[in-house]
């Protein structure tokens, strides 16, 4: 397990598929997290493995990828997966904290849920 700060944000693939949210392409575009290479190795991960990301606001299983990030920072594309773990406290502004939420990452054998499963509807 490692401790991390979680950042979410736009990616070009998220933008390209944002009007096709029930498609496989959108699922691929938003259901992963990028991890610094040293942290990735420390967690014993191979490309395509899954990790569980946990914060005080929730948890989510996503695919793991190596990304160009500082150690201790992970990136999840904006969307339903990131939103399971980001901070819903808006501090009176209406704006949740989508970036810079503290949490943990571990390797997991659990499956990545579909967007329907995440919502809890069929």
């Amino acid at each position, binding site marked *: 397990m490692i401790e991390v700060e979680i950042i979410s*944000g736009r*990616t070009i693939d998220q933008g390209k598929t944002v009007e096709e949210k029930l498609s496989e392409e959108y699922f691929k575009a938003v259901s992963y997290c990028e991890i610094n290479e040293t942290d990735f190795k420390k967690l014993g991960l191979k490309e395509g493995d899954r990790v569980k990301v946990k914060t005080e606001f929730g948890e989510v299983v996503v695919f793991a990828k190596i990304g160009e990030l500082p150690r201790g920072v992970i990136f999840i594309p*904006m969307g339903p997966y990131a939103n399971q773990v980001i901070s819903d406290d808006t501090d009176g502004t209406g704006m949740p904290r989508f970036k810079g939420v503290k949490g943990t990452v571990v390797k997991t054998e659990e499956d990545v849920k579909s967007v329907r499963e995440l*919502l809890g509807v069929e």
Partner: protein
Amino acid sequence: MDAVCTFCGNVCDDVEFDVNTQKGKRFCALGLAKFREKERIKSPMIDGKEASYEEAIEKAADILVSSKKPLLYGWASTVNEAIRYGVLLTEKVRGVYDQCASVCHAPGTLAVIEEGIPGGSLGAIKNRADVVIFWGSNPLEAHPRHPTRYSVMAKGFLINDRKDRKVIVVDVRKTKSAKMADKFIQIKPGYDYAIISALRALVKGEDIEANEVGGVPKEELAELADMMKNAKYGVILYGLGVTQSRGRDRNIENAVKLIQLLNRYARWIIWPMRGHYNVVGAGEVPAWEVGYQYAIDFSRGYPRFSPAEFSAVEMLLRRDCDAMLVVSSDPAAHFPRRAVEHMKNIPVIQIDPFPNMTTLLSNVVIPSAVAGIEAEGWAYRMDGIPLRVKKLVDSPYWSDEKILKEMLRIVEEKLEG
């Protein structure tokens, strides 16, 4: 056919699209994906069963009229004409109007209320800016043609080529945009406020005691402060990296103060990189109608503004609304998990061209025409310039404007009833 792109806040008005061959010219990858044909919501639906437009609008009006405090949310991806009916509708049903900026750039609105905004247009940036700072924004992935049309490679009256411009990217990640910059300054997450404060001190000529701030060595900050002071025309183009991190509205307030200070030495402006093509309109239209940009409550019969109470996320977290109308937006995908939970407990009406995660929770679904392809209207570009988006093809779908106008008419009838 000449078209205007309705994906991002650049609202590129130089593109062409052929609906028959599905081919476009001058689009970026995002714009092209937007214009290509894709799966649509096929017909209006009530509780999963197909219905006519008239039946679905009637049902939606029933829900709105019988709820105590409905939340009418979205509006960033539609035209001003539709938004105007949305504001009037919210007032009629004594609901709450909120829009996508409340989870995007609205903290900047709070800062502007406090400090004003020393701003300018994209044209001024293209023609004059010799120092361009992207702060917590990643145009190559969010506004791919911004650098070529306006801010990096663009030629202008005083800018002959790329060498006449210094481009700096400040971010916590080395994004694609960081790679196009002359200089990339990597900061620690959540340290924007502290770094801006340090820059304010350095620009004033004061010393700072710390050797580094937010992961940036003092010498690098001093160099940046110097470059800012010596600019002819500088601009900070900030993104959600600043508004969605620790500090939120306070980060923008501090940045505006830095710009005010810089204007004693050089000409500087600051501007947000707005995301959806008409998210500016989603704030401007209610501002011309009732004086506020977002989080507007009409339950007492007059408008009140309070993001701590009436922004969509706060309303949902506190279970303060008993029905929701979602227009051209997908809060079920983009809100924090606990806010989405309440959407499952209340009737939800959706107006949108495409099936999305909110569709899966909606009791009434009303498909609409895509503005910029199947419907026309006015939209504000990210710098507040209004542009007319086009209709390229006839479609069986009603426009947002027509749906909302009809919904307002029926609501009025029911209320008078």
